[in-house]
Structure formats: structure tokens, C-alpha cells
């Protein structure tokens, strides 16, 4: 019967219609749900957030850095230290949304476990409290960092080399995340040319400059170029491009150690060429230049963008000037890696999640990110960096009674070509050399001085504060 055949066609059609409902629902659940649920017009979200007192955020010693207080209507987020943590914690505001830790750890702060993503919001407690977070940050060191950066644009990062815990991380300019200040200054903040919303330490990308010479040195040591003598006449031309030492100073015949201490561009540009494209790419790859790292808050991954390298490119990479862009936090990671016998630890900011009653929910443990260089190589590098502070360009970082290892950097950038005195000033350091407790990276952007003059004293003060605590 032809009717029956057509009825079967209709059955198939209805089957497809119903299947499309099921597929659409599943797709909705898997891919659209989160963006829809977090729409600010969703009354459920306000409702849930109003019911739960948002958890507080404290430093490693329990100093409260952000907390929520009940008000007549709803609750208010309070940041007692104003702009001190604006680039770590961010802000939480109904009008402007939320950023950084307030955004990434929103579910923890609201006390919604990971399970509630799968099982819906039914587990949310009525009138309850969210969970509290404890950071790896040391409030005293953070305050010191802010004090040291006063009046300067740039960033300071301090890490514990053994664990990857970030001890301090301050970027200037910053802003006050308290809601009153935020709404009063919003327009100015958004339009400001100094981009105060940019967390420079984690998302600011800078040319590495001479600090990158420690990476090149690592490769040179591995390739037995440690004892090789180089002729430094103050200037050299490679592939038609001239490379000059700072101030055009000639250093005579020197080895690698001396070259690093005096930050000889002539030697390191030659080293770049000697090592060659393959080895340069290899060492950059092993240090993770340009690779993304999960930090919990946005962390720019930097770049090492070469396809084919000319000799001039190799020479430029040798002195950290080529197409290499890094964040201050990443430079702190490289420093920590050398301090930690060649093991690069994964950096982290949040140490512990606790319920309101003080029960531990989750603890974040140190993780090894990459095994970059051997202990032997790192020991040699440590000694070379110690000399750079003891008798080289990093003299300003030396502290009585504490052995400090470091490296200066003065990076050219897009502005130095047009104007004078616009270089970025870098300094990376760790201390004490034997048992490193802290690794520091400092950058002062467009500061125009040298790393040794301007940035090294900041690193010194931070190290002194931490080691003498």
C-alpha cells in the first residue's frame, strides 16, 4: 500500500524532528549554557550571589586582602589595600563585571564546587558563605614592591624558586578596585594612555634585552664555549649590522663569565652566530619562550617568532634584542629556574581554598613545569651571575651579608629609535646563591636609565626585605 510507505516516511520525518530537539538541547547544554547562565540579566545569578556571602581573599599569612560585607541591600566587596592588589585580585562589581582572581575563581568564592557545573545549581546553600582563598603572596613584600615602584611605570615580580609560589607581583600604574572609586573613575581609567588596567607583570610584553644573555650562556656552557676567549673591541659588524657595547666600551680578550658580568654585546652577538639557528631555537624552546602557562589568571605567553634566521637575527637573539617578547613574570620564572638547579616550577598564585568554617577544600601543590638545564650548567650559571653582581654591571644589587646573583638588562624598544632615554630597564636576581629563597624580576618601562642603575636597587631592597624577614 502506497499510503503505508508514506506513513513510514512521515515516521522518519517526525523522528528527525524529535532528534533535532534532543541534539539542540545537548548542544545548548554543552556549549552555550555557561555564557547564557552568566548573562547579567539572569536573575538567578543575582539571586544566587545575593544569597551567598562571597568568600574572602587573604595573603599567605592570613592578612585579608578582599572581603564581602553584608549591607542593608545585598553585600559589598571591600579591598582594604586599595590599588595594591588590583592586578592580582582584580575587581568584583555588578556594573563592571569581574576580572582576574575574582573572575577565575568565582565559583570557589561563591562556594559552588566543580560538580555544580554538571549537576546544576541545586547544591548552592541558602544564606551561606562562599569559600575563602589564600594566596601565595606575602603582604609585606607586596607593600614593599609598591613602595619601591612609586612614581615609576613598570612591574616587579618575586617568586620562591623551589616552589613557584609568587611572593609579590605589583604593576604600576594601578587602580583602586573598590566599587565607589571604580564607578567614579571608570571613564578616566578606561581612557588613560598609561593603561592602568593592564596587569603589566602578567600581560605586559617587553623585549628581554640583556637579561636574555643568561639563556644564551646556558646554551654556550652546554656547548663547551665556557672557556673560549673572545676579542671584544667594543663594536662588531655582523651581516652588515653593527653591534655595540653599552657606551662603546672595549673589554679586550674575555671569556664567557667576564662577558656576562660586563654584559658584552660584542661577545654575545658572536655567540649567537656561533651557536646557530638550531641551538638558539632549542634553548628558547626548552626554557618555554612563547609557550603558554596556566596561571589561573590571564598570562600572556610571549613570543619567539622566527621561521628562518639570518646571521644578523642570530646575533640580535644573542643579546636579547630580536623578535623576543617576554612578560616580567616569565623573566622571574627563568631566574627561578636557574636558582632551582635547572628545574622550572609552575608559577601559582592561589595556595589554598577553605570553607567559611576553616575546613580545607583544596590545596594547590608545587609542580615542575620543565626540566630545562642540568644542575651542572645551572651551578656554572649561578656563579657567573653572582660575579655579575659582585663585580659587574649589577653592583647596585649587592647586599652586605647576602650573596646575590643577577643580571641587568637595558632593552631597546619601538620608542628608542625615535627618542633618546626611552629604554626599558631590567634586572633579574636571586638570593642567597647557595640556598635561593627568592627570585626577582624588575622592569621599568621607557625609563631611559640602565638596568644596573635603576632596576637593580629595587631588586636589592626586595631581596633584603624577604631574606631578612
Amino acid at each position, binding site marked *: 500500500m502506497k*499510503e503505508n510507505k508514506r506513513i513510514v516516511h*512521515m515516521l522518519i520525518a517526525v523522528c528527525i524532528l*524529535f532528534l533535532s530537539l534532543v541534539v539542540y538541547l545537548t548542544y545548548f547544554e554543552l556549549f552555550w549554557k555557561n555564557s547564557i547562565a552568566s548573562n547579567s540579566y539572569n536573575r*538567578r545569578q543575582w539571586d544566587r550571589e545575593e544569597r551567598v556571602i562571597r568568600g574572602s581573599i587573604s595573603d599567605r599569612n592570613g592578612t585579608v586582602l578582599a572581603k564581602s560585607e553584608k549591607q542593608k541591600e545585598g553585600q559589598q566587596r571591600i579591598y582594604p589595600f586599595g590599588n595594591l592588589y588590583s592586578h592580582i585580585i582584580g575587581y568584583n562589581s555588578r556594573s563592571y563585571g569581574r576580572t582576574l582572581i575574582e573572575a577565575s575563581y568565582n565559583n570557589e568564592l561563591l562556594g559552588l564546587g566543580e560538580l555544580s557545573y554538571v549537576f*546544576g545549581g541545586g547544591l548552592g546553600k541558602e544564606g551561606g558563605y562562599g569559600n575563602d582563598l589564600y594566596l601565595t603572596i606575602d603582604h609585606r613584600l607586596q607593600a614593599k614592591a609598591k613602595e619601591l615602584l612609586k612614581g615609576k611605570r613598570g612591574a616587579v615580580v618575586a617568586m620562591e624558586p623551589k616552589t613557584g609560589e609568587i611572593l609579590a607581583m605589583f604593576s604600576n600604574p594601578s587602580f583602586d578596585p573598590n566599587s565607589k572609586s571604580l564607578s567614579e573613575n571608570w571613564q578616566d581609567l578606561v581612557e588613560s594612555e598609561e593603561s592602568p588596567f593592564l596587569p603589566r607583570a602578567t600581560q605586559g610584553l617587553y623585549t628581554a634585552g640583556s637579561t636574555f644573555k643568561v639563556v644564551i650562556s646556558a646554551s654556550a656552557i652546554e656547548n663547551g664555549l665556557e672557556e673560549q676567549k673572545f676579542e671584544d673591541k667594543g663594536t662588531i659588524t655582523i651581516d652588515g649590522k653593527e653591534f655595540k657595547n653599552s657606551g662603546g666600551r672595549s673589554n679586550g680578550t674575555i671569556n664567557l663569565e667576564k662577558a656576562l658580568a660586563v654584559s658584552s654585546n660584542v661577545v654575545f652577538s658572536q655567540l649567537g652566530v656561533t651557536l646557530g639557528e638550531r641551538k638558539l631555537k632549542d634553548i628558547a624552546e626548552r626554557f618555554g619562550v612563547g609557550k603558554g602557562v596556566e596561571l589561573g589568571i590571564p598570562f600572556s605567553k610571549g613570543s619567539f617568532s622566527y621561521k628562518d634566521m639570518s646571521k644578523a637575527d642570530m646575533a640580535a637573539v644573542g643579546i636579547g634584542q630580536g623578535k623576543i617578547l617576554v612578560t616580567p613574570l616569565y623573566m622571574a620564572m627563568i631566574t627561578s629556574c636557574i636558582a632551582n638547579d635547572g628545574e622550572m616550577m609552575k608559577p601559582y598564585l592561589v595556595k589554598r581554598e577553605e570553607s567559611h568554617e576553616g575546613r580545607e577544600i583544596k590545596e594547590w601543590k608545587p609542580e615542575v613545569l620543565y626540566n630545562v638545564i642540568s644542575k651542572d650548567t645551572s651551578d656554572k650559571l649561578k656563579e657567573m651571575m653572582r660575579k655579575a653582581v659582585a663585580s659587574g654591571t649589577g653592583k647596585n644589587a649587592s647586599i652586605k651579608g647576602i650573596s646575590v646573583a643577577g643580571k641587568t638588562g637595558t632593552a631597546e624598544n619601538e620608542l628608542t629609535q625615535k627618542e633618546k632615554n626611552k629604554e626599558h630597564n631590567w634586572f633579574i636576581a636571586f638570593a642567597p646563591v647557595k640556598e635561593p629563597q627568592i627570585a626577582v624580576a624588575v622592569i621599568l618601562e621607557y625609563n631611559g636609565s640602565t638596568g644596573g642603575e635603576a632596576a637593580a636597587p629595587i631588586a636589592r631592597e626586595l631581596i633584603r626585605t624577604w631574606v631578612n624577614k
Partner: protein
Amino acid sequence: MTRLISWRQPLGILILADAVIFSMLYLHKQPYDYALIPIGLIIVSLICASYLIIIRKGLGDQYLFLVVGMLASIGFAMIFRLDRAYGIKQAVWLTAGVILFFLSYWIYIKIQMWDRLLFYYMSCSVLLFSATLILGKNIKGATNWIVIGNHTFQPSEIIKILFIFSLACFFKGSQQFIHNNCRIELNWHRTVKRAAIALMAYTFIGFLILQRDWGSAMLFFMIYFVMLYIFDGGWRFLALNAGAAFIGAVGGFMMLYHIRVRVDTWLNPWPHIADKGYQITQSLFAIAAGGFFGTGLGMGKPEFIPEVSTDFIFSAICEEMGILGGVAVVLLYFILAYRGFKIALTVKDIFKKAVALGITSMFGFQTFIIIGGVIKLIPLTGITLPFISYGGSSLTASFIALGILQAISAGDYGETEEQAGEGE
């Protein structure tokens, strides 16, 4: 036929499911509502008793009522949770619906000349339509309600069934009564017959458009189109109808603000979130809040959605019973539709086939139109979800249609088994 109530049998599982639903309903709010215990017992025993009658008396297909029992239980629980007063009314309507189910079954079996009453169906429909237009009250943008005293009544629910019967008469093409003694033959020339069918169908649809009941208009067209495909089979005529519908839809989109709003809010409701797109976005928020397993009955916020107990009940189910609950509901409707098609395949009489098919496609498409609408798969048009949505007209009309489908399935078994001599 002994072990009907075992945990492996669907009826046993249905009783268990109802027990769980009612415990959830009972626990969701303090102080506990003791009225739920008798209501729950009544509903469960109603479903069990009806099912056992169907099985024992051999009243045809056994799955239809089973599936509908499950759907009605879910619907009742959701409505009761949303609004206690509505819930109690719904329980009353459910009881009335089951009685009407058996009544329509019995009446359908008793009367043999359903295929000859075309003119009665049509005049009834026209009467109801006119009454709606004259007495009708505008509720939520559509003039499809008649208010009698304290009660409102939606004639289009009954007209759906009349429409299906009318179409079936045409396809059967038998002799039709007009008055007691006056009768006409319906074996006209093919073209005339087609024109008559189209005229009738578009008159129905025209009335619905006048009432601004877009959902029902779409549903009627889909039923009409499916019936044409199966029983007429002329590709050109089919294409002509599709073309007419397309032109109608585009014309409506161009000329009528109401339709344009619906299409706009379907394509992108977010810019209109505070006004035109409010309903659909609230519905999406609810579905997103549910996750796979839902918030649990009584623990979500479906009351944020407007019209939640009628048009948007599926969103509330998704929020509180999860996407998995929602998908289960879709699957249940699919089983219902499958059984309907199965019945349509087994009966041989064209009239019965057409009625079974019409009722089945009515359930199927109605479900698709409203679920698709609230999840933003297709533009939203307000019609009810059969057996689940709150509302006496919808529930009773659905049960009447189900009774007829049940009767058709039983008739077939009766012919082959008991009265083997009469078999077709």
C-alpha cells in the same frame, strides 16, 4: 496475564516513578502539604486502574496510556510545584480527562458512521470559530478563549479534532449526510476534490490567523500537509500548497508586526532582553540553570519565566529535572508518536487510518512546535504541550483524541481476533 505489576514491567516502573515524584513534591516545601497524599494516591490509582482495564479488556494498544500516564504525572508534579491551586485544578482535569478518554473510546466504538458526518464537523467548527470571534476574550495576545462564567474555554482544542475528522472524510470519499434524508456522494473529480479540501483547510487556518493564534495555524497546516502527502500524493499539488504556505509566511512577516517580532526574537533575542525577548531569554536562563540533572524539584527558580505553567512548562522541567529530564520527555512523546504511526499502519480503512494519522501528527507536531519554540530552535508560538501543560481545554481535548486513537487500535485487533469472519 498475571504478572502485570512487576518491577520489570513498565507499569511497575511508572508506579515507582510516581512515588518518587510525589515524595519530591512532598518534601520540597515546609510545612509539608498533606493534601498531596490523597491526590497522589488518586492519580496513581487512576493511571493503574485505566491501564489494567485496557489490558484486561483488551482495549487495544497498551503503550499509549502508559506513556501518557507518565507525561501527565510529570506535568501534574511540575504544575503543583509552581502553583498549588493550579495543581489541584489540574488533578481534577486529569480525572475528567481519563473519564473522557474512556467515554470517547466507547462512543467512537458504538457509532459506525463517523466517516459520513463531514457537514456536521464543519458546521460545528464554523460555529465554534464564530463564537470565539464574537465572544472571544483576548488572553496573551490571541483571541482564542471563550469565557463562560468563571471558566475559560479554548475552542480551538476541540476544533483540532473536528478538523482531523473532516480531512479524513474527504480522503475516504464516502457518501456524506447533510440532513436526515439528504445525502451527497463525495466521489467527485480529483481536481474539484482537491480544491474543496484546500478551501476547507485554509478556511480553518484563516480563522486561526484572525484570532492571531499563530501556533495553532502552523499546527493545522502541518497536519493538513502531512495528510495530503500520505493520502493525495500529488507532488505538484503538494508543492502548490507548500508554495502558498511560504508566500503566506513571507507575506505575514512583511505585513504583520506580530510575526516580525517573533522572528526577530528568535534570531537574536538578546538586544530585546528587557522587552520583546524577555520570555524566550528567561526560558533559556531556566534551561541553562538546570544542568544535566536539574536543580531538583522546588529548588530552581522557574517562576521567573512568564506563562510557565502553560507554554513554558518544558523550560521549568529542564530547570528542575535537568536536560536529561527534558530529553526523557521528548523521548516519551516520540514513543507516543511511534505507537500512533504503528496504529495508522495496521488499520486498513482509509478513514480510520487518516484519523489515527491526524491525531498522531497533531501530538507530534504540537510537541515539536512548543518545545522547539521555548528552546529557541524555531520561532516561539504559544501553544500547549499535550498532557503536560496546565489547562482544562488542552488536557481534556488531548485525552479525547487519545481515546479515539485507542479505539482505532482496538477496532483493528477486534476485527482480526474475535470476529475473524468480518476481517477486512
